[in-house]
Structures are given as C-alpha cells and as structure tokens.
C-alpha cells in the first residue's frame, strides 16, 4: 500500500514518518486536514522533527505544522498553569491528587506529551473526598457545567467523574474523576489500588501520577470505553508512545499483564496491545500478546470487533472514512453505553439525549 492509495494518511505517517518524503501536494493537503481533525497536527510535526524530516516539508503544509505546534505549546502552557491553580485550591485538604491522561504525560515529561493538544485537565481524587474537593474548587472559582437536572444526576450517579467544571474567570475546563471507569460499568478496576500505586511527581509536592502499568491500562480502558471516538487515533498514538517508553523498562510487560488481572482490565489490555501493534506497529513482545489473547472475546465476535476498531480508530476526517465508518462509529457508540450502564438505564438515557438534540 503506497501513500497515494491509503485513505488515512495520518495513521500511515504516524506508523512510518518516512513515507512523507514521497507525498504529492494533494497528499499533504489531505494529511494536514486529517491531522488537524484528529488533533494530531502538532504531534506529527514533532515526530517528523525528531527524524529530521520537518525541514524538508514544502512551505504550504509547513505553515500548518508551525501553526499547529504554536497552538499545542500554548495549550500545554495553559495546562501547566491550571495544574498550579488546582493544586493551590486543594492544598489545604491534603488529599491524594492524581493527574490523569495528557495532563499526567505533560507534567511527568513523558514522550506521550509530544505535540499533545488539550481541551481540558483531568485529575483523580478518592471517591470519599470528592465532595470536599468539589467544594474547595468552587470556592476557588470553578463552576459546574451541564446544568440540566438530568445531566447532573447522570454524572453524579452513573459516571466516574463530576460534571465538567469550568473556571469562571479563565474559562478553562476541569474533569475531576473518582475512578477510571463508571461505577456501573461491567469492568471494575478498584480505584483504591490505583491510588495506592500512584507515584509522586518530581518537583510538584502533593501531586502524583498513576504507576506506569496503571497509566497504560487507564489509557486502554479509556480508549476502548469512550463513547465519542473523535480522539480515538490521538489516544491510540498516546498509548503507542507510552508503550514504547515504558516497554523498554525491564519487567514492564510482565507487570502490565499481571496488573491487568488485578484491575479487571484484561479485555482492554487485549484490545490495546492488538490495535497499537496492528495500526501503529508498536513493538509488543509476543509473550505479552499471547498472554493477553486469553482475554479475547470468542469468534466470531473477535473478527467483528477488529473490524469495528479498525474503522473507528482512523482519523475522523471525511476523506479518511470508508463508507462503513459511520455505522461502525454508531455501533461503538451503542457499545460504549452498554459497557457503561446496566441495560435498564440505556433506553431512557438515549431518548433524553435524542430529544435534547432536536430542540
């Protein structure tokens, strides 16, 4: 498969950055559009830069890479500031405050923060301290969003996070989680285990990040349970960078597999390893793959799921979609809800959402 015929150029360039050497103007055009749409413009620029390929990008697309990197840098600076404000607001409570996802990658200086874009900050606190944390944050200027009673109840009862908070002055968004999956999800990774294993962040007293295996498993759980796949390829790229970084540490893969059992996350591990290897050529040891295959769903579901993921994990841009992708995304959307809530809730929740959209 050469560059010209492939539909998803972002995926191709992430996997094999050298392929951009052969790009025509028309391919560059599609790549820039797809990458921007997938939130991967700055990451791609950074990966090309690492391989000394950025300087030879033609002027047209190069301007977009510059624009994307400038934007990502500004967003990263904003996340750092927000973390300081959040730590200040919660300091007197002395509770475990764990940074999650991109926020963690950035503050911990991980390769997964390369060219990372941000729309919000994610943190985790113990469930029994959630009310205190919320009160302290509101005192410091954060206000709830999602004002309908239904949404408030939905979040507080079923979800693993507060309704997103927005700072009234800075307009920045904050997601406060108490678990990495909702209480009502079928998989139940115990939060106390994550908190116990969390590692303090150098240079940031009071802040922690998940242990490497937990960080990877969280990324997998989040990716494969999330109802909106628009960040799918970006999250997969994050996962690829996490695995390449931590995978070099002795004993990591064994710890990862072991930990997935402790946290009830074997199925997401199976998907995560399989999909990163297939799509981004992540070097996953065969032993890890073989062990995780034990958690695979049985045929024919396995084949169906592979197909669904392959479609959903493309960049969401129009030119990257094959005809089936709309359906694949919808099927995953329904699946995400199914995993999240017991079936009795499902119909009423979807019905409310549908009504709201038409209004």
């Amino acid at each position, binding site marked *: 498969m050469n560059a010209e015929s492939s539909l998803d150029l972002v995926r191709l360039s992430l996997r094999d950055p050298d392929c951009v050497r052969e790009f025509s103007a028309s391919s560059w055009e599609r790549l820039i*559009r797809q990458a921007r749409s997938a939130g991967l413009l700055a990451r791609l620029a950074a990966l090309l830069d690492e391989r000394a390929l950025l300087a030879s990008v033609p002027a*047209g697309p190069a301007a977009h890479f510059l624009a994307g990197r400038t934007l990502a840098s500004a967003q990263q600076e904003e996340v750092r500031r927000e973390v300081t404000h959040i730590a200040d607001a919660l300091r007197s409570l002395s509770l475990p405050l764990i940074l999650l996802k991109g926020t963690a990658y950035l503050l911990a200086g991980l390769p997964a923060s390369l060219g990372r874009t941000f729309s919000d900050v994610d943190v985790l606190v113990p469930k029994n301290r959630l009310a205190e944390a919320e009160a302290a944050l509101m005192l410091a200027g954060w206000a709830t969003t999602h004002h309908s009673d239904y949404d408030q109840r939905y979040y507080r009862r079923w979800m693993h996070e507060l309704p997103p908070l927005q700072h009234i002055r800075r307009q920045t968004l904050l997601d406060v989680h108490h678990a990495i999956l909702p209480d009502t999800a079928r998989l139940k990774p115990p939060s106390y285990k994550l908190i116990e294993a969390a590692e303090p962040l150098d240079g940031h007293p009071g802040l922690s990040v998940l242990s490497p295996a937990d960080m990877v498993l969280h990324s997998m759980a989040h990716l494969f349970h999330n109802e909106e796949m628009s960040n799918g390829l970006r999250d997969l790229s994050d996962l690829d960078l996490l695995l390449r970084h931590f995978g070099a540490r002795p004993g990591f893969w064994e710890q990862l597999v072991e930990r997935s059992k402790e946290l009830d996350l074997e199925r997401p591990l199976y998907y995560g390893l399989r999909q990163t290897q297939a799509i981004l050529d992540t070097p996953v040891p065969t032993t890890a793959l073989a062990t995780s295959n034990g958690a695979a769903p049985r045929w024919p579901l396995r084949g169906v799921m592979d197909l669904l993921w392959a479609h959903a994990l493309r960049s969401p*841009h129009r030119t990257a979609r094959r005809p089936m992708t709309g359906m694949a995304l919808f099927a995953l959307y329904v699946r995400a809800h199914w995993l999240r809530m017991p079936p009795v809730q499902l119909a009423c929740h979807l019905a409310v959402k549908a009504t709201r959209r038409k209004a």
Partner: protein
Amino acid sequence: MTPRALRQQLHGTGLRLRTGPIVTSIRSRLDAVVDGISLHYAGHAVEDATAFADFSVSVERPAGLRRWISPQVVFSIDGDASFAPLPGDQGFPMLEWGLNWCVSSHCHQFLVVHAAVLERGGKALLLPAPSGSGKSTLCAALAFNGWRVLSDELALLDPRQGHAVALPRPISLKNESIDLIRAFAPQATFGPVVHETLKGNVAHLRPPPDAVARADEPAFPAWLVAPRFSASAEARLDPMPKARAFMGLVSSAFNYNVHGRAGFRALARLVDDADCYEFSYHRLDDAVRIFDRFG
C-alpha cells in the same frame, strides 16, 4: 479563466483561489457565490488541481425540504458544517465570513489582528478597531487614494520579523458606508447589496488591482491609528500613549494568547517602531488629506 471554467471548478472539485499566502479550495453551486467570485476575484491567481490548498470550503444549500420553503446557505470547512446557516441570498457574505474564520482560527503562523492594513512608500499603516468604528470605510477611502490595501479586516503579522503580510480580499461595507464610498470612489467596483439580518445592508467591493498584483510585498508598520467615525465635523489626529496602543492591539489580536511571551514581545516591538495615534473623523476627504501627511 472563462466563466464556464470557473463555474465548472466551483461546482466540481473546487476552485483553488490564492489570496496572498493562503490558497483556499472553494466549492459552491450557488449563483450568488459564483457571480461574487467572478467579480471580486477576477484579478486573483487560481492554482491548478495539483497545488496545495490550505483550506477546503464550501457554501451550499443544506439538503432537505427546507431548501424550497425558506432557503439557507451553509458554510463548511473540511466537511465540517457546524456553523449556523444564513438566509438564502447571503451566500457571498457567508463565503467571505468563512474565509475570515479559517484564517483567524487556524493561521497561527501569524499574529492575526483585527485591523485594516494599508501601505505607502514601503511602510504600513495599521488601523486596529472593532466593528462599527468606521475602519472599513476609512480603509476603502484610502485604498482608492494613494494607499495599497493589504487587508481591510485581518492583519497578518509575522511574529518574529514583525512585517505585515498582504491578504487581498474584497472590502466589506455596511449600510451608509456603501453609498458614501460609491460617491467618494466612483472607480470602485461593487457587488450587489445583500440584506443581512444582523448587520443591515452589506456590500463588497473589489480590491484595487495593485492590492492583488503586489500581494507578495510585505510592509513594516510605521503608523498605528485607532479610527473612530464621529458625528462632529472636525477631523482630529492625536498622539496616543503607546501603552494604550499596545493594550488595544492585545485586545484586537485574535490569537494573542496562542503566541504567549512571543506575542507580547512582537506587539511591543510593533508599538516601539510605529507612531501611534487616535483619529476621529466625519468627512472622508478630511481623512484622506490628513493621512496624506504620512510618509
């Protein structure tokens, strides 16, 4: 390009229109858009299908029954149509608005300031101002009286070097300004007046030939003037304290926050190097006469 070829590209794979540093692939089946492009962009370069396009946009009627009852126009960028539609005959203003949106939202290789920019003798005049200040009216008057217009709306500033880059596009005028400029600059070519629900009457005028021909000539800002159209007859040009001029630029820059410290330094250098004024005027010929003193 023949009208037929133009229509073919707009209806088909897209017309790759160059406006200064930006190439936009435009698709539209609306006559108002085809006619508007034909009139206002007659002097602009069109790139061929193999050239890189920065953005891909379309202005179309949305599908569905609505198109017969109460037609609308919808702007899409890269297939994303998540902008509020406008009523049926506002296709060309919608395109212009959409092109501005692309640049101000995505072109962070520049510091993008809400300002008109003109050039004379190699030096640039920056007119930062919110809508309703008379900036576009003044810009149009100057564009036909000795000044080359780089932009009437979006100043593209290089964040490192500080020069303004030209983005030659039609000048948009509203309500009374339309007749004012028709009278003041009879050589200007206007498109049709379109009634916009929010702004009143809107018309565009074609950029003068030199604006397009010399689009690849940048210029360093030598004068910064904050204009204000005022009821009083006396035209006044008063020196403006530079710190205030700076803060005005900060609040007029769409993507100031994206540039962080570099944005602060870039605008500070601009203010360092430019003479800063506040300008209130009522009559256009007073304005042209006063600006004649510059340079």
